[in-house]
Every structure is written in C-alpha cells, then in structure tokens.
C-alpha cells in the first residue's frame, strides 16, 4: 500500500475508508534466523536493512512494550553530521546521507527538515576549535560555514549577543543539519520491515538469553522460547539489564537527560541553535512548540524524569541566550535514560558469545544515528564483518585504550 498525493485525495473523497493497519501483529514463530531485541528506532532500522540490503526476511523484532515507545519517542529530534574525530565523522556522515533519502525510500514522510544548525562560540579559542571542526566536516564531505558575529546576527537576530559572561563571537553553521519527526522514523522503518516479511512482535519481553557452548541459541520471552542463530541487543537505556542476561557487564552507566516543550507558537526559531557554553539547545517543531534541552542531570538514574535543578538551569540558559522566549509557557518536560559510555561514543559490535551482538551506548546522540546504526548493525549481523563507517565502534576499544572521546572530557561516564 503506497502513500501518494493521489491516494490521499482519493481516500479523502471516499470517506477515508480504505486505510488499513500498516504492519501485522504476528505471533512469534518458534525459530528465526535473526532476533532483534528492542523495537525502537535502531532495532527497527536494523530489521529493515537486514531485509532490504541482505535479503534476510526470517527476522523478528521483539519489543517489550509498543514499537517506538522508548527513546526514539523521547528525544529532541535533531539530525546532524558535525562530528570531528575519525570513527564518529564517517559514521554520522553516512547516517545523514541515509536521512536525506529516507522519506522517498520508505515512502513515509519522516519530515526531515534541513533547516540548518548553528553552534555558537564565545571566545577566540572556541573559534579556533570550531574552525578546526568545520574543516574536519568539510574533509569528510559534509558542509560547514564559519560565521562571524555579524553572520550569526543576520540569521539569528533575536539572540542576546552581549551577554556579559558569554558574548557571541560567531557560530559554526551546518546547513544540512536539522530535525525530523521522531515517531515517523520508527513507524516508517517498521512498515518497511513488515512489508519485507519481518515479524514485529510487541508486548514480548525478553527474560533470558539462551547460550550453549559459548554460542547463542535463542531467547526466553514472556511469550515463550524462541530459537535463533543470531541475536542483536538493541535496547539503549536498558542495555545493562539485557546484557546481564548473557552474563555480560557493559561499559555503560545510565543517566537521565531532560527535555522540554512549550505551547505552540507562530514560527519564530527557524534553525536549530546550540549554546554549548550554557548547556542549552533549541528548535521549533512543525506544530510550533519550542523544543529544547540541556545537559545530563549528571548522576546515574533510571527514573525517566529529571530533577528541578537542571530544569532551572536549562531555563536560565535559554533566557540568557534568547530573552524573547521568556513568555512562552512550558507544556511538558520529560527525561530519557541514556546509555552513557566512558568516551561518549557508541558500540556496534559482536560479543565474546558467538552469534550475540550489541548495539548500545548512544549516550544522548542516538536519534540522528538511527539510519546509520541500523544499516551498519545489519551489515555486521548479516555478513559477520564490520561496516566501514562503524568499524571503530568496538566493544573492546576501552580495554585497548583506543577511546573515541569527541569532547575530550576524559574517561568517565557522566562527563560526555
């Protein structure tokens, strides 16, 4: 069932009676070639690319709740490829390229809006660092423009440029950065995977991982045992618990990250603006709500709700940067559980248990990675070889001391 303007028109003329559910609700089969644990963005994308790129259709996605009910529905929807370090740079560049064709490919409007992203800087030293980052982005084949103060003023005239502590000296402009509709990405991948024969099994919690002679043989679930030759754990936010079922400890500490949205307003913020020194970033959703957030609450937590001190800090940073938003009323705030790794970079790798693979550690940057992560993880699961853009996201890099510390903040989980 394809979506098109014509279809929308004809359904509208006939009382919208022709729409049907876009994925099945299958019973789990006793055995699959590949089981993906976790029906979030990354898991659904993995299943989609397993079917589309590798012809693997005897695949199940097991989700303990409902599809897209985790962090893919709890983020601030920003899509960008402005990374600096080898390892991250090529991965996020690949992911952004997948984003750019995603709506056409999935025949599903993911509302990818390349409205441009500006990272502000406030000192000469920061300008140098951003110039270097911009050069790295350009060398990777992506886009970056170093704006001076007047350049920023031209596109973001509403900022307070003369803040006493952090006067704005300029910004690094990433025109291909932007936002997307978070739920639509999950739904689009789910629909595409289902159409290629993948079983999306909801309300099916994995309660155990079966291992025999160092090899994974299947999983135990609330809907019975299911056998599989390969299993992928894609449960960012709960990675530690699921890995523990296989007797593994991960280099992950879970932290809470808060986000906020205001009532709907007329269009006022046309870009994504990031104020790193104040720990604040903001964009405006297509419904008009200002969507913004800040930094971690900085202590290990699974609460899915934040603390007031960080909420207050984020509001203060927002007011310092753009006083015009002071009368907007906050409608909601929420917290997501972040898989924080000691270097702030993710993990896409096999494990010491044959057939068992992990995709985790996305810290607070998982949303933009959804297409690239699914593509690279599917490649690893199907071929047994690391996909080049994700080849450095190894589980053993910590033991080897080969960390990918994008922010250069040190080997501690909450510092990224």
């Amino acid at each position, binding site marked *: 069932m394809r979506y098109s303007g014509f279809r929308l028109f004809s359904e509208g003329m006939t009382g919208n009676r022709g729409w049907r559910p876009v994925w099945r609700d299958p019973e789990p089969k006793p055995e699959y070639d590949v089981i993906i644990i976790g029906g979030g963005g990354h898991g659904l994308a993995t299943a989609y690319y397993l079917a589309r790129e590798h012809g693997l259709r005897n695949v199940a996605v097991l989700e303990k709740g409902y599809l897209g009910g985790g962090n893919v529905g709890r983020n601030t929807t920003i899509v960008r490829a402005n990374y600096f370090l080898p390892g991250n740079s090529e991965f996020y560049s690949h992911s952004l390229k997948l984003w750019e064709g995603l709506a056409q490919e999935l025949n599903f409007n993911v509302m990818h809006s390349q409205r441009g992203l500006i990272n502000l800087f406030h000192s000469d030293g920061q300008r140098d660092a951003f110039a270097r980052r911009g050069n790295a982005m350009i060398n990777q084949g992506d886009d970056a423009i170093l704006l001076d103060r007047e350049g920023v003023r031209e596109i973001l005239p509403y900022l307070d440029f003369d803040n006493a502590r952090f006067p704005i000296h300029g910004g690094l402009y990433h025109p291909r950065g932007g936002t997307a509709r978070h739920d639509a990405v999950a739904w689009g991948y789910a629909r595409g995977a289902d159409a290629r024969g993948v079983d999306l099994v909801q309300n099916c919690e994995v309660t155990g991982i079966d291992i025999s002679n160092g090899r994974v043989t299947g999983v135990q679930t609330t809907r019975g045992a299911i056998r599989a030759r390969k299993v992928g754990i894609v449960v960012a936010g709960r990675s530690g618990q699921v890995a523990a079922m296989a007797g593994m400890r991960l280099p992950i500490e879970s932290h809470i990250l808060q986000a906020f949205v205001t009532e709907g307003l007329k269009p006022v913020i046309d870009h994504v603006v990031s104020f790193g020194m104040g720990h604040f970033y903001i964009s405006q959703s297509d419904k008009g709500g200002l969507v913004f957030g800040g930094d971690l609450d900085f202590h290990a937590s*699974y609460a899915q709700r934040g603390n007031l001190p960080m909420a207050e800090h984020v509001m203060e940073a927002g007011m310092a940067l753009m006083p015009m938003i002071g009368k907007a009323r906050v409608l909601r705030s929420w917290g997501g559980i972040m898989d924080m790794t000691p270097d702030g970079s993710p993990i896409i790798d096999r494990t010491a248990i044959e057939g068992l693979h992990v995709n985790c550690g996305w810290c607070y940057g998982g949303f933009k990675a959804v297409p690239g992560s699914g593509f690279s993880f599917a490649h690893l699961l199907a071929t047994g070889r690391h996909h080049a853009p994700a080849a450095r996201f190894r589980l053993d890099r910590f033991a080897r001391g080969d960390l990918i510390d994008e922010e250069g903040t040190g080997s501690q989980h909450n510092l990224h």
Partner: protein
Amino acid sequence: MRITCPLCGARDRREFHYMGDAVYLDRPDPVAPAVAWDDYLHLRDNPAGETRDLWFHEAGCGAWLVVTRNTVSHDVLSVALADGIRGGAG
C-alpha cells in the same frame, strides 16, 4: 533530591558533585593487568535499583561521600564518609 551529609546535615543536591559508582574506591594496583583497569575504569553493574556512588560535597565541607540510593526512585537510603571505605565491600 537531598543528600544528608554526615558532617553538614541535609543539603540540596546542587551542593554535591557526582563522580560515579563507588567502585572508584577500589583502585587496582598500578601494575595490575589491563583487564583489571578496564573493569575499574569502564565496566559497570549499572543497576536499576539500589546503587552506591561517590559524591563530593563541593559547596559544603569538601568531604567525599558514599551515597547508597535508588536509581529508579531517586530515594537516598544512606550516606557515609568515603574515608576508610573500600568500594566493593558492604
């Protein structure tokens, strides 16, 4: 969240700096094998429930504290001075 410092009494969470799991108190021997250092620096039990972690009373007495608390409810269960405690025990 409020933390009751053994020296200063109940104080706002903002007075404290969080470092990480109390396993940081179990520093391996400098010549311990790399696997021990990987375990110490990187790997975590990361429980959804009761945990023990290290906090520094930055805006108070400057003591390092071992805080036992619940990561799901944010309840603080007990607080002790880190001085003299080994991370893995008790």
